[in-house]
């Protein structure tokens, strides 16, 4: 970027005069380049071609002029004042590009920046990095690099770093220009199961141009895999926030953090999850804990002895135990055998060929069949019909209540009981992942939600076959793992969660990228060499020989 060592010798007056001239020339060049670019832009629309052509052309013209025009043009181009002014101008453009949305329709600018939309559109700051003012600066930048690098010739080990870094900048710049001018980029949409593509739908800046580019090979999508992360069940902590949506201020709940409902042994993925029963402190001062975790939740009933209430009977029918209260019946799945229980002898259930009628007051169990009845005294442990029916337990008075349990260890219907402590007030809430709802905390400003997370995409993979005459290759393309074939590189860029057979690929043919990366390598080597190797040639201090600026410089 810069520059020759500051020459020693001239008188202060001459230095000031030369410095003032350099400052004037710098101002003229930087503002002139931007002004000329802004004027020419009235007729020439911005774009990659505009940028490259203008940068390259103007750069060579400026450099050429610096060799033939008498005066200080060349020394100014390679001087620090010019370089620093240029770097500041480029930095301002880079910052503007982050303050103004790029490449959007004109209506959006008028809506979003009503006061300055006209200026933005007139100066084409809606495409700032492809416009001619920016090209003007880049042209000066290229000329400055060439001019200052040429001052390092002939090359010596003492100052090779500066030269290498600047050559790196030029090479990567040239590569970027080639990339911008010559690269072709486009989309290929394929569906798994043998869909074949022969061409690319060309895009520019992510927008389809309507043009197509023929591929020199055919590309077939054999299979597409959309891989999700394992499903997780977590307790999310949400806080109320005020948002503006379509101009309307409203309250919404935003996820702030989340807690484990259970823990998994990270060193043993096959181990069963262990409920996380620790009490957790929440940012607002409340706390909660998971009191119980049910992977496969159901509500069951439990019968217990009581001082009053109906009698109850625990009976095992065909291997399955059931509590019956007076008036209830249990039967086998095929309906051929039933047990009925009552205070008095119950009536036989209709349509059942064999029934056991248990009477609490008579203390009898009657086996009822079409051909007659047989009664036996009622007792715990009584076995009937060859052991198919067994009386396990009798309660004179009972109470029945519901309770939560898990049917299995599989996470088919996960649920938790959350115990919250808000302002010291403890309460319990059952929360199921199938029907998530908020457990509200302090003044309704925050809430806990037991929720399922199962739509997080881990990877999307295209299994493709590319064929070009007798040559073909198979590959799996994923994000960060593109596939090179026939001079094109294919990137995985899209999928459709609604259609698991769809794969969106980006195809790029970019002859300049290799030079960009070669330039990058040279920049890295040059910077390191300049900062850490060159000082050794000068006896340990890179800047010990450099002049110290006077206080007013």
């Amino acid at each position, binding site marked *: 970027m810069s520059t020759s060592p500051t020459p020693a010798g001239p008188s202060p007056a001459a230095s000031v005069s030369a410095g003032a001239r350099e400052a004037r020339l710098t101002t003229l060049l930087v503002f002139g380049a931007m002004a000329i670019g802004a004027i020419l832009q009235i007729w020439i629309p911005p774009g990659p071609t505009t940028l490259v052509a203008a940068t390259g052309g103007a750069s060579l013209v400026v450099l050429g002029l610096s060799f033939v025009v008498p005066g200080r043009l060349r020394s100014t181009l390679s001087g620090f004042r010019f370089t620093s002014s240029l770097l500041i101008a480029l930095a301002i453009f880079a910052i503007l590009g982050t303050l103004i949305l790029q490449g959007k329709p004109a209506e959006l600018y008028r809506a979003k920046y009503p006061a300055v939309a006209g200026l933005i559109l007139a100066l084409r700051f809606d495409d700032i990095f492809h416009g001619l003012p920016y090209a003007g600066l880049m042209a000066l930048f290229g000329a400055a690099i060439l001019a200052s690098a040429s001052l390092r010739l002939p090359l010596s080990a003492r100052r090779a770093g500066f030269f290498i870094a600047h050559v790196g900048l030029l090479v990567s710049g040239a590569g970027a220009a080639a990339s911008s001018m010559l690269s072709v980029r486009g989309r290929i949409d394929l569906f798994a199961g043998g869909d074949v593509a022969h061409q690319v739908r060309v895009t520019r800046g992510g927008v389809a141009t309507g043009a197509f580019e023929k591929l020199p090979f055919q590309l077939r999508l054999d299979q597409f895999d959309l891989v999700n*992360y394992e499903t997780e069940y977590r307790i999310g902590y949400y806080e109320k926030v005020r948002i503006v949506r379509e101009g309307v201020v409203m309250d919404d709940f935003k996820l702030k953090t989340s807690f484990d409902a259970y823990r998994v042994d990270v060193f043993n993925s096959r181990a069963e999850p262990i409920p996380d029963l620790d009490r957790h402190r929440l940012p607002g001062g409340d706390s909660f804990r998971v009191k119980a975790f049910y992977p496969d939740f159901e509500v069951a009933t439990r019968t217990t002895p009581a001082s009053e209430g109906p009698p109850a009977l625990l009976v095992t029918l065909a291997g399955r135990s059931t509590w019956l209260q007076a008036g209830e019946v249990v039967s086998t799945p095929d309906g051929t055998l039933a047990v009925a229980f009552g205070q008095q002898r119950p009536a036989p259930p209709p349509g059942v060929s064999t029934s056991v009628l248990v009477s609490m007051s008579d203390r009898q169990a009657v086996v009822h069949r079409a051909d007659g009845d047989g009664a036996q005294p009622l007792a715990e442990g009584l076995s009937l019909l060859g052991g198919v029916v067994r009386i396990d337990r009798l309660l004179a008075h009972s109470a029945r209540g519901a309770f939560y349990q898990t049917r299995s260890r599989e996470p088919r219907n996960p649920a938790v009981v959350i115990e919250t402590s808000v302002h010291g007030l403890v309460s319990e809430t059952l929360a199921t992942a199938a029907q998530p709802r908020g457990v509200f905390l302090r003044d309704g400003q925050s809430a806990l939600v037991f929720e399922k997370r199962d739509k997080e995409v881990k990877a999307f993979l295209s299994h493709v076959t590319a064929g070009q005459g007798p040559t073909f290759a198979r590959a799996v393309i994923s994000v960060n793992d593109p596939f090179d074939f026939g001079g094109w590189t294919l990137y995985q860029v899209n999928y459709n969660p609604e259609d698991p057979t769809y794969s969106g690929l980006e195809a790029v043919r970019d002859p300049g990228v290799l030079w960009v990366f070669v330039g990058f390598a040279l920049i890295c080597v040059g910077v390191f060499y300049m900062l850490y190797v060159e000082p050794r040639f000068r006896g340990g201090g890179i800047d010990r020989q450099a002049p110290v600026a006077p206080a007013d410089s």
Partner: protein
Amino acid sequence: MLQYVFVEHPFFALTSLLYLASTIAYGLAWVSPSRLPGRAGTALMVAGVALNTAVIAGRWVEAGRAPFKSLFESLVFFAFCIALLYVVFERLYKTRLFGVAAGLMTFGSMAYALTKWDAEIVKLPPALQSGWFVPHVMVYFVGYAAVAIATGVAVVQLLSSRIPFVHRLTTMKAGSVLSGEPLDLDRISYDAVRFGFVLLTVGLLVGSVWAKSAWGDFWVWDPKENWSLVTWLIYGAYLHLRKVRGWRGDRAAWVAIIGFAVVMFTYLGISMLPTAEESAHVYTGT
């Protein structure tokens, strides 16, 4: 809030406290003729680095990925980088003078991390599942840490010419200064910027190579890319200013401070930009 932090993130909180304690000890070393506070500061800082390492390693194992995804994780790593680099600098330059600045930055980074509530472990999206992810982030954060230390030194440098007490500290032969030699603050700041600039260069270019392998384009004018470029240009200007114009002292210190301000905006401020929604670099939980 503090209760939440100490109960839910005890090791992060403990690491922060170690950094805070080391800051206080280093501060005491400024005024104490004894070597004890300075040594205590170093010991606490080293303990902080050790615990910070353990915290990062633990989270790495728990998450099954490098813990650089969220703002919370990156701040914890940033604190680690500053502390580690500071300890190296302390040995290299044989001074504990900058312990307060380094301690404040590490504690500040941890404290800010702990006020973020995105401490949960989030999944790595496909775009970040790359071999470039870890080197890109590590190189950048060590670079950030280097320019952070350079800024700390630059601040001391500016203060030393204005506040006699600070000036005495930079030249004292006992207490905070181990070597007993006056410090060349300008040189130390420059060395840190030089080291940071090399890493910022490599980080920028590695990021570009990664972008190419992920999206097919090496430069997409993402706001973070642009601001990283601005950062690079500023430190490039700093190096040019020193080399060619011979800028030293206050002016070089101010450029180093401005550069770090831009680094901090690049790191933390991108979400404030109107173009942030289009950036692939905005942290979750900001």
